[in-house]
Every structure is written in C-alpha cells, then in structure tokens.
C-alpha cells in the first residue's frame, strides 16, 4: 500500500456499527418494556463505547503505557460506583 493511501475501511465499519446501535437504542426507548429497555440500553452503550475505543480511537494500537492509563481510569470509575452503591445498599436496609 502506498504511503499516500488512507485506511478508511475499519473506521467506516465502526461508524456503521455505531449508527445501527444508535437506531437500536432509539427503538428500545420507543418500543421496549421497562427491564429490557434498561438493560438493553446500557448494554448497547457499552458496545458503542468499545466500538468507538477500538474502531475509531484505536486504543489497541497504542503503547502499553497508554492502555494502562486508560484502564486505570475505568478501574477508578468502577471502584467509585461500587463504593457508592455499597453505601446506598446499607442505607436502604
């Protein structure tokens, strides 16, 4: 492949997946019932984040140090959610 060629196929594929996922979330909001809507919307959001991260941002191609920093942010977020909801559970009891 020439140096002047632009690799567009991978990002375009990721973009199509993101558009389909957007339509799926909108459909869930308009048609689905409560529990399916809640779980489905959050699952699709996670799928979209993964597609964005690996298909468009290219996290997988970054050096290990950058992946570590990104992973640490998600770990801290998960800890924050876990501790907060542990606190909530004890209050509701």
């Amino acid at each position, binding site marked *: 492949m020439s*140096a*002047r*060629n*632009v*690799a*567009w196929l991978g*990002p*375009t594929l*990721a*973009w199509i997946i*993101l*558009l389909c996922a*957007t*339509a799926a*979330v*909108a459909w*869930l*909001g*308009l048609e689905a019932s*409560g529990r399916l*809507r*809640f779980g489905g*919307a*959050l699952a*699709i*959001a996670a799928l*979209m*984040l993964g597609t*964005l*991260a690996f298909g*468009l*941002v*290219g996290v997988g191609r*970054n*050096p290990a*140090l*950058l992946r570590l*920093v*990104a992973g*640490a*942010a*998600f770990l*801290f*977020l998960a800890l*924050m*959610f876990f501790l*907060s*909801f542990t606190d*909530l559970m004890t209050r*509701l009891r």
Partner: protein
Amino acid sequence: MTETALASRAPDPLREPWSDLSRQREAATLGMWLFLMSEMLFFGALFMAFSFSRALDPAAFAEAARHAEIAYGAANTAVLVTSSLTITIAVRAANAERATLATRLLAATALLGVAFLVIKGFEYRDDLRNHLFPGHDFALGENATQIFWAFYWAMTGIHAIHLTVGVALVLRLFWLVRGGRISLVSPQLEVTSLYWHLVDAFWIVLFPVLYVAVRA
C-alpha cells in the same frame, strides 16, 4: 497551493526536549490521556450521582425521563459518531500527507459539531417551552422529577461546553493545516482527535442513560 507546497512550508513539528518525533508524539498522547482520565472521573462522578438519585426514587425518574425527546437525542448521536469518523480519517489523511483531504475532513468535523449544537439548541427551546427547567413553574409535580431534569441540564450543558471547546480546537487545526502553518505529522492532530472522541464517548453514554434507560 499544492499539497507538497503546503507540506514544505510547514515548520518543523519537533519541539524541545525531544530528540525524535515519535517520542514527542508518545509524550503528547500520554499527556492527553491523563487529561482525559481526569475528565472521565469528573463525568463519572456526575453519572454516579445521577444513578444514586435514581435508585432513591426510580418511579419519579422514569416519569421525568418520559418527557425527554428521543428523536433529538438519536439525531445528535448520529451526528456525533459521524464526526468521530471524519476526524479519525482526517488524522489518517494527515499522516499520509494528504493535506487537502485532511483539511476538508477537519472542516466537516467542525460543521458536524456545530450541527450538534444547533439541534441541541432546538431541543433546549422545546424543553423550555414545556417548562422542563427546574424552578417555580416546573411542569412536573414531584421533587424527584426536578432532580432528573437538574441532572439533564447540568450533564448536557457541560457536554455542550466541552463540544464547543472541541469545535474551536478543530477549527484552529483547520486554519493551521490549510495555511501550511503546521506539519501534517504534528502530534496536535492526534491529541485533538482524542479530545473529540472523548466528547463523543460521553454523549454515547448520556443518550441511553438520560433518554432511554430510566424511561417509564
């Protein structure tokens, strides 16, 4: 002006203290990731507070979310993911020294960002007409519904501010690349695209959470 002429006019992208461009790029990208990490924690705290409040009164949140317009949210999501595609290919075009293509795609990215803000403006106008701003003439009854809408305005407002900054950064890059004032291999393009993707990522979570998941 030809692409080669534009590239030859650009100043050397290498800055002190780095001895080669790949190390400079890695340092710039790492710095941006650290900034993005702090932003993730900031938005994460907002999402956590939202989830916490919703857990205390899910029925009121479901009733309040029913008034959020899914069509606006879906249209804006489509616009923003398209802008992520254009900025990704713009960076790849710049790395392949395709200055004209990179310039056009940067312009398209900025335009899509502005389109998002315009659609959001229409949505805000409808929300205000429907008295969905927390306060004395708020349309819905319960206090918890006001809390939902307080989160809605805060989270979408902060996101819109971030996007406005992103549009300004992309327009600056467009101006620099178009005039040959920046090297096409400058780490600035990659760093700006990372920021743009972060703004997109926040919206990708905001749309399902605010408009769909908690809806009655």
